[in-house]
């Protein structure tokens, strides 16, 4: 039984690795933020007033610390720990 399980586990690795290669540009292995949604602090500063920062964190977190020009149009809703919330948290930390 253990041998059978090991064979299946090994076989499933192949398409898993293939998919990881295929999706390499869609997901970051270092943080929960997709590479396409990440901007550097310098980029953000360069955008100046032309960018509107949307902060979707809960109100208490927003009150504690947020991007100076940050707007608060929406809460995270039921999925407080969603990818979108993580993104806005990271944006808030970077200032």
């Amino acid at each position, binding site marked *: 039984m253990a041998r*059978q399980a090991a064979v299946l586990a090994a076989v*499933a690795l192949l398409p898993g690795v293939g998919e990881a290669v295929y999706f390499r540009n869609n997901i970051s292995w270092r943080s929960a933020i*997709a590479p396409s949604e990440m901007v550097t602090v310098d980029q953000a500063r360069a955008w100046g007033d032309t960018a509107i920062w949307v902060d979707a964190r809960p109100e208490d977190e927003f009150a504690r610390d947020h991007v100076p020009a940050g707007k608060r149009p929406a809460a995270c809703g039921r999925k407080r720990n969603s990818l979108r919330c993580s993104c806005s948290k990271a944006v808030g930390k970077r200032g």
Partner: protein
Amino acid sequence: MLNVELATAAPGSNIKNRTSKIIWRILDFVLAGIFIYAGALKAIDPVQFASDIDNYKILPWPVSVALAFYLPWLEIFCALALVFRFLYRGALSILMLLIVTFTLATIAAKIRGLDITCGCFGHVSQHWSFPSHLATNLAILASLLALGISNRLRKPL
């Protein structure tokens, strides 16, 4: 006298045995269908599944990503093993391990007050309540256990 009784009893018992084997095979196919469906939904959108795993706040992000690429395929291959009865017991044990792990993680998340979706069946399971998750997982686990026990008692079809 004994020979006559055996001769009359044999066809009935044979039919019963065959019916029981067919029922177990149907259960094989139903469970395989569930896991292929669940695996395919997650394999199509591994980014969302990685986020779903990360929401449990148990594993570091890189591990969540690795599992998001790997687990759907493991589910699919184990389901195919149930259909073709190839590496059958190994597949059953892996599926049981997966379902127990998912169930424990869901319970742990509930205890810690995390309001999350399990990601088990993609967007279909997004609005399931905690009792629905638990009931589904336990029903699947019970079916897998039944298949495991019946497989020990019967010969291949």
